């Protein structure tokens, strides 16, 4: 009679990894074979985790079709098993997984779509935050403005993609009814994914704005972030950019 620990390890190996562990011998056949009964759990596992991935990656699902997506999901479950009883955490490695998945080479933009959809998922569930109260700024001595560390909205993500992922996402929305042409050679996107209240929004950024927010996100001070932005976009107007990002709630706090 195996211990509970051994039984659970055997169950995992046999049901989910297809390794023979003799578990059937401990399953009461009772009409159906033990193997049949174990198969129900194997199928349930794949279908429920595939369903979780479909919910997070609807555009990827639409692009590759249901049958292929189910195959992709089953492969993903094996390569990156769930590590939490909270399914919100499941699926984070899908972008890198699809980037190297055989038979997806014909859809080189599938990684970008997955990056966007995972960002959407994270932003959807991230913490709320009140807008920045700019009347707090006068409490800082002007000569120290350069040292300010601005904080981005917790429900925001920055992404830069080789393909025009926003267009790809838009033409694959269920309620979209326009032209379906996407020029894959039109270049990539720099984007802010943000949720101010309840709805997740995508906002395209110019080169300077993207570099500026990325620098702030990575903990650089205001002076360094401004220099970084100006280096990639010489006409970058840091004053108006700062006011703009505060009013759009991309920036929600600061500290010295």
């Amino acid at each position: 009679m195996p211990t509970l620990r051994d039984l659970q390890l055997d169950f995992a190996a046999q049901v989910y990894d297809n390794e023979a562990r003799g578990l059937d011998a401990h399953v009461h056949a009772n009409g159906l074979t033990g193997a049949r009964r174990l198969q129900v759990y194997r199928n349930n596992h794949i279908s429920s985790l595939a369903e979780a991935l479909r919910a997070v990656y609807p555009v990827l699902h639409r692009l590759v079709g249901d049958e292929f997506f189910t195959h992709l999901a089953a492969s993903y479950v094996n390569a990156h098993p769930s590590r939490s009883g909270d399914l919100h955490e499941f699926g984070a490695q899908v972008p890198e997984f699809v980037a190297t998945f055989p038979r997806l080479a014909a859809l080189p933009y599938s990684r970008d779509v997955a990056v966007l959809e995972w960002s959407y998922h994270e932003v959807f569930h991230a913490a709320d935050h009140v807008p920045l109260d700019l009347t707090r700024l006068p409490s800082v001595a002007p000569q120290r403005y350069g040292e300010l560390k601005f904080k981005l909205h917790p429900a925001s993500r920055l992404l830069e993609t080789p393909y025009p992922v926003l267009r790809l996402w838009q033409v694959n929305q269920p309620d979209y009814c326009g032209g379906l042409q996407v020029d894959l050679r039109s270049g990539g996107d720099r984007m802010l994914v943000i949720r101010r209240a309840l709805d997740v929004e995508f906002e395209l950024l110019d080169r300077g704005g993207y570099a500026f927010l990325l620098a702030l996100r990575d903990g650089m001070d205001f002076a360094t972030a401004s220099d970084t932005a100006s280096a990639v976009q010489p006409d970058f107007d840091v004053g108006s950019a700062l006011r703009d990002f505060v009013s759009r709630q991309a920036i929600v706090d600061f500290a010295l």
Partner: protein
Amino acid sequence: MSTTTDGRSSTSTSHGAIPAAQETPSPALSRAGIGLRAEHYRDVIEQRPPVGWLEVHSENYFGNGGRPLHYLDRIRTDYPVSLHGVGLSLGSTDPLSDAHLNKLKSLVQRCEPVLISEHLAWGSVAGRHFNDLLPLPYRAEELRHMVERVSQVQDWLQRPILIENLSSYLEYDTSDIPEWEFLAELARRSGCGILLDINNVYVSARNHGFDAQEYLRGIPPPLVGEIHLAGHTVKTFTDGELLIDTHDQRVTAAVWSLYRDATRRFVNVPVLIEWDAQLPALEVLVDEARRAQMILSDTYADVA
């Protein structure tokens, strides 16, 4: 029928100080409730359907903000809310996840649920989660383990929880305690209550060939703090059939009938309709709740 000898004893358990869940009923829980899913948030707010309470899956509110918590905060101003967990993996031999318990506790503090429940199941081992409700063998070893785990959760939350019987598709030859006895003993020893899922009793009885009535008779009424009803699917194989707990349709006639029997034994226990897949219009769930309510009214009119 004796309900005095088989109920919760007054001897102290490791949780003697924690009051039993079923000793503090909310009046709203005397009316049937329904499971709440994201697709119905707006309809629930706009229509204020005539149900007593709403139950949500705890893990769906483990995010830090946004739409789910916004609607939960809003809806609980109109209805009592209960939290039903599916991912704690109580029966696993891995340690309980501190992160999971912390999120659950934060959620409990935020939404002040009338009831909190989890399952008599395991769903992970060696750090890997299957996000499923897997059956345990029922032996003394597993009973001790479950008592310990349920006690840990109740200590963490500082309140009792309810443990639900699951639908299962296999039994272990090594089990030597019937599930109903295991569940009742778990409740007695840990101080938890029982969430008796009538559909799961029916599904497991059919899948394993035991008598659903015997199951009901084996559960001491004072231990039951909530009842679930849901729909299931019959899956036919070349060598037989299994009932699968799909929660994707109306409660079947056989399960309504079993519920009618259960209401005579488990008096004034809050009842809830679950529906998690292929979600219909809110009206359909409300109609199912109305049906449960009619059975309750019939039974207690007879008793009176």
